[in-house]
Every structure is written in structure tokens, then in C-alpha cells.
């Protein structure tokens, strides 16, 4: 198979389509009660739209990646590609070492020797000794296992229904800590304020979930184990992306600040809309205030991706801004949702969308909101960054 841009795009299209189809089948099979034919068709249509959004985003990312390092990678033979991929995963302090091996591979002439060289070098990158040393790694691993074992019963005793979440979240954060010991990156906090904002948002999300479940103990049934694991995974991913200085997320201060700021503004718009909706004002006056808030929140969500792409003249920066927007919006919106859901239900027995329903539904609705921001908001922001990149001024012709 020739690794052309078209081949990559075809694979990305199939992967996105298959994942969406799989999600749809799982959702359909596990639905209780099973949906009727009409509902199933509606769900299939929504899933098809979601698949289209992801396929479009993936193709745009591939197109930009191809114009950068992708075409270079495809020109390599399989041993070089294997070694390049392994070297890309090396921590920064060992990058030079990886580049040295890659450069030497270019000097190895015949195919079988190249394969032997590449496999041996990849094996060395995989068995890189942890920078903190094996004793530190053992210590951290023991601490992680102990925390996971203790977290379930301890949290379960204090907040019934949150044990699965506690185990999953502790395990995921522990895995990130282990990774930090095994493959430490250079400590850098060039985007301190956004990182702290996201970390506080995650902490607040956990706090409001605890408060919600303690205030309404009967709502435990609205946080089944699978949903608890989903919530833990989303919050841990936001925390991990914000505080571990991921290389792919870059050190673009503008992207981080704009993204985190947009997340905070989005959550503020959401809070304002709920608060206005529960005032004693007439419906007309409420509508006057709340009507602009929805488009404003949408604009705010996509603004960082557009602005960063255009100012930096870089699609990559736009994607970084989109990721920062999502990882800030997710925990902050969730943090607003649960307490406001409790407050609103105490006022008139309704949910945040105005419909009557049990208070526990807020837990499920808040998780749906997180899923929507991640699954729809993120690819749309990437598409928007891609569109903004097309408006870049053309480079001056080379003389």
C-alpha cells in the first residue's frame, strides 16, 4: 500500500465512520427501554451527522499534517517510519539521541540490515530507564495502586454511588503520574493561569458532584458505573492535557489564554442565562436578555480557534486554541450545571431546560453536555480553524 495523502484520508474516513457506527450500535443495544423505529432512525441520522463532522475534521487535520511532516514520513521506508514514530514518542531530553539513531539509519544500505537496525533501536527507546530511577518508579506505582485500592471503599462510604468514579479517576490520574516518572518532560509552565483554571474546574466538578449526591442521595441511580467511568475519563483527560505540558498541545500562550478565557466566558454565559430564566421578569424581558446569550456563547466557543489561526497564521495554533477551549469549557460548564440544576429544581421542580423531571436527571443531562462539547464542539472548532487557515494571505513567491 502506498502511503499517500489520499490513503491516509480514506483510512481516517473509514475509522471515523466505523467508530460512529459502533457507538450507535452500542447505544441502541444498551438503551433501556429499546427505542422505537422512529427514534432509532432519528438517532441514526444524528450519528451520521456526527460522523460527517468528525470525517471533515480528520481530513482537514490530515491535509495540514501532510503539508508539514506527513509527506516526509510517507517518503520513508517502513524501518525509517517505525524508528521515526518511536523517536517522536521519546521525551525531550532524549530527542537528540533519537535523532542520532534516525540519522544513522539513513546510512544503512540494505533492507534487512535497516530492519535489524530499526528494531534494535526501537527496542532501546522502549526500554529507556525512567529518569527518576527505578526506585522512584516503584514507589510511585505502589502509591498509585494503594490510592486506587483505598479510594473506592473510602469515597463509597462517604458518598454512596461515587466509588466507581473515585477508582476510575484515581487510576487515570495515577497512570498520568506514572507516565510522568517514566517519561518526564522538561518542567515548564508557560501557561500557568489556563492550567490552573482547568485544574480548578476539574476539582470544582468533583466537588459539585459530591455535593449533588450528598444533597440528593436517591439520585445515585443516575450515575451508573459506565457513566461514572466516562465522567472520570473526561475530567482526567482535561486535567492531564492542562497540567502535563503535552508536546502536541504546545506552549502557545495565546492559544492557551484565549481558549481558557473562552471556556470561562462560555460557562459564564450559561450561568447568566439560567439565572435570568429563573428571575421574576416577564417572559418578553427574559427573552430580550437571554436571546443574544446563546449565539454569544457559540461565537465565544469558536473565537479562539479563528483568532489564533489568523494571528499566528498557523492551523496548528488554531487547533491548540480549540483544545484549550474544550478542556476549559467541559469542567466549568459541568460545575455550573449541577448546583444550578439543584437550585432550579428547588424553585419550581423543573430541570435546566424548563421541563419537569426528577432532580437526578440533571446528572445525566450534565454528562450529555460534556459529551456534546467533546464530540461535537471539538471537531467543529477544528473545522473552523481549518476554514480560518484558508483565509491566510498567500506566501510571497520565492525569488
Amino acid at each position, binding site marked *: 500500500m502506498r502511503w499517500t495523502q489520499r490513503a491516509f484520508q480514506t483510512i481516517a474516513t473509514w475509522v471515523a465512520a466505523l467508530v460512529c457506527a459502533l457507538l450507535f450500535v452500542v447505544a441502541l443495544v444498551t438503551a433501556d427501554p429499546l427505542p422505537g423505529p422512529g427514534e432509532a432512525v432519528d438517532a441514526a441520522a444524528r450519528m451520521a451527522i456526527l460522523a460527517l463532522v468528525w470525517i471533515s475534521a480528520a481530513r482537514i487535520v490530515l491535509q495540514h499534517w501532510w503539508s508539514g511532516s506527513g509527506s516526509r514520513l510517507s517518503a520513508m521506508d517502513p524501518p525509517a517510519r517505525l524508528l521515526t514514530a518511536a523517536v517522536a514518542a521519546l521525551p525531550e531530553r*532524549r530527542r537528540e*539521541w533519537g*535523532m542520532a*539513531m534516525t*540519522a544513522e539509519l539513513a*546510512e544503512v544500505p540494505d533492507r534487512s540490515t535497516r530492519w535489524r537496525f530499526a528494531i*534494535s*533501536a526501537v*527496542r532501546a527507546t522502549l526500554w529507556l530507564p525512567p529518569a527518576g530511577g527505578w526506585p522512584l518508579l516503584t514507589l510511585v506505582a505502589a502509591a498509585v495502586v494503594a490510592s486506587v485500592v483505598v479510594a473506592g471503599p473510602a469515597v463509597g462510604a462517604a458518598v454512596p454511588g461515587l466509588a466507581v468514579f473515585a477508582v476510575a479517576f484515581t487510576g487515570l490520574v495515577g497512570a498520568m503520574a506514572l507516565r510522568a516518572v517514566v517519561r518526564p518532560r522538561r518542567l515548564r509552565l508557560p501557561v500557568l493561569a489556563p492550567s490552573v483554571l482547568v485544574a480548578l474546574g476539574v476539582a470544582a466538578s468533583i466537588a459539585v458532584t459530591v455535593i449533588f449526591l450528598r444533597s440528593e442521595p436517591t439520585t445515585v441511580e443516575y450515575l451508573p458505573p459506565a457513566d461514572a467511568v466516562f465522567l472520570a475519563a473526561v475530567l482526567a483527560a482535561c486535567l492531564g492535557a492542562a497540567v502535563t505540558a503535552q508536546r502536541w498541545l504546545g506552549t502557545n500562550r495565546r492559544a492557551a489564554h484565549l481558549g481558557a478565557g473562552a471556556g470561562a466566558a462560555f460557562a459564564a454565559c450559561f450561568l447568566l442565562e439560567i439565572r435570568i430564566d429563573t428571575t421574576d421578569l416577564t417572559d418578553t424581558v427574559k427573552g430580550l436578555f437571554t436571546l443574544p446569550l446563546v449565539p454569544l456563547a457559540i461565537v465565544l466557543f469558536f473565537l479562539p480557534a479563528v483568532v489564533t489561526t489568523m494571528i499566528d497564521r498557523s492551523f496548528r495554533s488554531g487547533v491548540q486554541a480549540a483544545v484549550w477551549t474544550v478542556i476549559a469549557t467541559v469542567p466549568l460548564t459541568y460545575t455550573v450545571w449541577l448546583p444550578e440544576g439543584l437550585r432550579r429544581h428547588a424553585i419550581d421542580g423543573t430541570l435546566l431546560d424548563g421541563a419537569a423531571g426528577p432532580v437526578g436527571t440533571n446528572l445525566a443531562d450534565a454528562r450529555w453536555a460534556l459529551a456534546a462539547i467533546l464530540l461535537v464542539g471539538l471537531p467543529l472548532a477544528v473545522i473552523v480553524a481549518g476554514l480560518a487557515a484558508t483565509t491566510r494571505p498567500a506566501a510571497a513567491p520565492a525569488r
Partner: protein
Amino acid sequence: MTRLRRPSAQTVAVVLALADTPAAWRYGYQLCQQLDIKPGTMYPILMRLADQGLLETGWDDAVPAGRPPRHLYRLTGSGRALATELAAAQSAAQSAAQSAIQSAAAAPRRTDPKVRWQGA
């Protein structure tokens, strides 16, 4: 600078190979071929030696167009001192082994019981 505590046989071979031509820059792959050491073993050794300040590294940009610059290695002053130590230790070990063989050859031979039985 941290001195190697107990260098492995392969590390010793690498240091001594570099000490053969201490002023010359060497490539990793060249050392792999010379010493018949796999790159997955060679590069971690070079990395550790460089970390310990025993190796000086550089990039060779004089490569054909389209190829990446190659990494170069040579011993630092401390590396050369270590090489001298290792060479001395190695020759001392060799002469000790040689004298042990000679004294074993000079000592009266013990008759192999199996041979004695066969001769009986």
C-alpha cells in the same frame, strides 16, 4: 562528572575503541560495525557516557543532500583518562590471567581418574 562504577564489557569496548583515535570524531553506526554491537545496545551506552561527561558530541552537517546530519562522538579529557584506566586494568587482568595459565601449566599434572581407570 560521574565516573562509571562497573562498566560493562561492551562499555569498555566502546571506550577503548574511541580511545584508539582519541582526536577523531566517530559515528555510532561505525562503532556498531567495528565492535559488532547492536544499535539498541550501542546508543544507550553512548547516551550514558555523554551524560557522564565522558563523551563529547556534535553534528556532522557535511552529509549528502536530503540526509539528516549525523551525530558524532569522541572522548573528552575525562573519557580519555577513563580509557587509560580501563586499558591498564584490562592489561593487568590479561597478564594476571596469563600468569595463572602459565603457573597451572607448570604445576604437576593430576592424573585424570577416568584415564587411570581406563589404563588399569
